[in-house]
């Protein structure tokens, strides 16, 4: 799955996702990606977020919407992402998932749920100080 948030130079925010879902899913199954607030969310007055992982679990918590609301309340993007992951952890400690967050000023962050086979999450960034896309990573919590 790809989840993406773009903020243009005047602060307009858009978000989106695209996926072919889980391997060997039951036909008809749909994950979180096409659900607004789950797979991604954008509000130009607060920020944007996108989620990736186990859509069957993540869609129950509307993580992208929740992250944007945390940023609206003043949380920085990294903390907003971490709070979302923590909330899901309370119910599903072994879920596979990560969230990226960006606020209206262009600050960004990410968080993921630590598992034995998933200890870091890699994501991509491009902003005016760079001459090419940069891969960044966060340690999962």
């Amino acid at each position: 799955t790809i989840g993406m948030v773009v903020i243009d130079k005047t602060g307009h925010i858009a978000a989106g996702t695209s996926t072919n879902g889980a391997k060997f899913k039951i036909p008809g199954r749909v994950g979180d990606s096409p659900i607004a607030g789950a797979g991604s969310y954008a509000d130009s007055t607060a920020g944007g977020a996108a989620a990736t992982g186990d859509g069957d679990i993540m869609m129950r918590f509307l993580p992208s919407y929740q992250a944007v609301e945390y940023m609206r309340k003043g949380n920085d993007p990294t903390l907003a992402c971490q709070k979302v992951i923590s909330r899901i952890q309370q119910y599903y400690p072994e879920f596979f998932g990560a969230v990226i967050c960006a606020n209206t000023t262009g600050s960004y962050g990410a968080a993921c749920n630590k598992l034995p086979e998933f200890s870091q999450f890699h994501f991509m960034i491009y902003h005016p100080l760079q001459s090419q896309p940069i891969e960044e990573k966060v340690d999962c919590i």
Partner: protein
Amino acid sequence: SGLLPLVINTWPFRGATLAAWQNLQAGGSALDAVEKGCAWCETNQCDGSVGFGGSPDEYGETTLDSMIMDGDTMKVGAVADLRRIKNAVGVARKVMEHTKHTLLVGESATQFAECMGFPNEELSTNTSRFLYLEWLGHNCQPNFWKNVIPDASKSCGPYKPSRVLKQHLHTSEKINIHSHD
């Protein structure tokens, strides 16, 4: 601290990031950039988890889900269980711009896509067919059924509901870095 404009995306899909950025630099909107970035992954089958030829379902078919959202207007367009159309995010954009709905699914979404001018194409590839046949050869393991007869942890379907509902501890066994939303 932040700088604008900004492109950020999940996973190390460099080409998608670059496609979105270049679209912005060419004068595209944030919405245009998201569409171009996601479409890049659909065309290039990022990670096998985006676009055609990946993640076959229990019938061996690849279906696509996509969504796009405008943070200025809160307009959303989305498609789910989209069949035989490669450019899912493009169809999602059309849902947003040419309907008053938010989400179209399944064969009806395919019909909508065809009306909007998208070609009807096979989404399976030799890779996805191989994955599917391998899965069949391993007694359809892993799968997403529970509380069914025959035991889904050992056998392929068709399944019927079992009378006993057991508690199943959630694990990340079936969804992981190689198979995810």
